[in-house]
């Protein structure tokens, strides 16, 4: 593997972030060794699923961001740009609004996934079979705007302040409710989405020189578009379903790592996934450290707080000319 060193370093960073995540807020090692059942439950049923979910969702956001930036040939693209984040959020908000959260125990995730699928289907239908990347991005923005406005309408109409705050907090993203149930809902979807997205790698390289050249190199742009949208819907929808909308990771993770892979879209995919996993896990560790009783911090806040300094540094160094 060409980027072996980078990947090893990233795996180490992921491991450090994971350790920090487990240790944040104190680790009952002594109790665990003496066979304390409560300590074991805290570790196995509370902290581990939250850690696993953070790693998996972070990776899916990083990968989706890298694929979409490659497909749109635009470093500003993030998983939200095709509208699946917003439509998954809308699905979840509908479930919360109508009190369907308890449905089969997985009402909110189920509706979020339905929302993501609907958003992706509408996007592909509106953009049409021969859509260019520009058409798709505009259609995605429209789908996102529609989903966001319907979400806002739900909040407008919400019957009481309690329901309103539940929706608002949910939309900010959080791993606080993670259990193995959430993991078992999200993991298969995210894995399927990442699997689909991995097949775009070669075509993304071909797109380096534009759509015409990519076609001449044998890329089927219609198939590529469907892979991108379906993969994003599965990978991002699965994450939004259990943790709400977590911003910034999908935008910043590919950005931070692009320079280490010579800016080549295909080589960026794995590092972006690992970077997303590390960033989200670190952000969640920070949240667990800072959140006191009754003042839960939300994940989207921390990912931005951790990511933005890197981002500023990156923008500064890039504007200084060739690396």
């Amino acid at each position, binding site marked *: 593997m*060409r980027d072996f060193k980078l990947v090893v370093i990233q795996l180490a960073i992921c491991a450090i972030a994971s350790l920090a995540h487990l240790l944040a807020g104190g680790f009952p090692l002594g109790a665990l060794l003496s066979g304390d059942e409560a300590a074991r439950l805290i570790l196995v049923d509370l902290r581990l699923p939250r850690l696993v979910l953070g790693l998996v969702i972070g990776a899916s956001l990083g990968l989706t961001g890298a694929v979409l930036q490659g497909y749109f*040939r*635009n*470093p500003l693209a993030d998983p939200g740009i095709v509208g699946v984040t917003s439509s998954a959020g809308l699905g979840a908000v509908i479930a919360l609004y109508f009190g369907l959260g308890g449905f089969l125990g997985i009402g909110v995730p189920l509706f979020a996934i339905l929302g993501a699928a609907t958003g992706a289907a509408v996007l592909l239908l509106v953009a049409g079979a021969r859509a260019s990347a520009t058409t798709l991005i505009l259609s995605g923005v429209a789908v996102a705007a529609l989903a966001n406005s319907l979400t806002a309408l739900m909040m407008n109409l919400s019957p009481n302040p309690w329901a309103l705050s539940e929706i608002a907090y949910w939309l900010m993203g959080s791993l606080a409710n993670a259990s193995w149930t959430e993991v078992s809902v999200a993991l298969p979807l995210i894995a399927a989405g990442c699997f689909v997205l*991995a*097949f775009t*790698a*070669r075509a993304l*390289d*071909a797109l*380096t*020189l*534009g759509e*015409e*050249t990519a*076609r*001449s*190199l*044998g*890329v*089927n742009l219609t198939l590529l578009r469907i892979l991108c949208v379906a993969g994003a819907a599965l990978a991002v929808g699965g994450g939004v379903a259990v943790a709400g909308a977590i911003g910034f990771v999908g935008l910043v993770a590919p950005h931070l790592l*692009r320079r280490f892979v*010579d*800016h*080549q*879209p295909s080589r960026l995919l794995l590092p972006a996934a690992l970077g997303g996993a590390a960033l989200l896990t670190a952000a969640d560790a920070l949240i667990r450290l800072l959140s006191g009783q009754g003042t839960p911090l939300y994940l989207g806040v921390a990912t931005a707080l951790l990511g933005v300094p890197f981002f500023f540094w990156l923008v500064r160094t890039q504007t200084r000319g*060739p*690396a």
Partner: protein
Amino acid sequence: MIMLSLAKATLGHGQCPVLQDVNAAFAPGEFVALVGPNGAGKSTLLSALAGLNPPISGEAMLANRPVALLSPGERARRIAYMPPDEQTVWPVPARTIAALGRMPHRKPLERLKAGDEAAIDAALEKTGVAHLGHRRFDMLSSGERARVLLARALATEAEILLLDEPTASLDPRHQLGLMDLLAAEAASGKLVVIAAHALGLVARYCSRVILIDGGKVAADGPPAEALSESNLERVFAITAPGGARPTGWSPA
């Protein structure tokens, strides 16, 4: 032997015809130039030959099969096409750009093999940009970029080369070098079709000129006939005593 052909083809974009009733057959070893005023339809014809812009009516055939029926992979291995104005958004090294030419030969997620590396090296060497391989593509001059893009097309080692204005941004010396190179590719049995405005070079190097004007093929033949004084006056509205003459320039 006919390699690539258009029969009774109407070409255009969407349902809007640009060229009507195009009949042209190309054999291996030919070095053909498409010549015509801006907007005449040279690029439309080239992309139709490349199988990227299917005829509105009529048929584009590769050997005896419609180009449209080839799998995208097979088409890409047999036809290398260089569109005009290729741009990149990512500041990748020049060699990575040239390496894209090997993509039709690779399976998804497969790495470059020794044969691929050799083909890329050979292509960069031929176009004289081997020393620029590690430089950022977007920081090269437009002429250097054009030569890297040509290397990308050559690296495919396809039997058909379709190049849209390959001489456009090159200095005179590199224009001569490029035409020498393409003539050698044709002599080795490939079909080379270019769109070009450099008529002196076309007259010297190309074996055949297709002159396009007013939505149809105005002339098709050896440069001396197709680029005659009367044809040039009719198509380009210029006075060119004796027609397009082969340039006598050569690298010193």
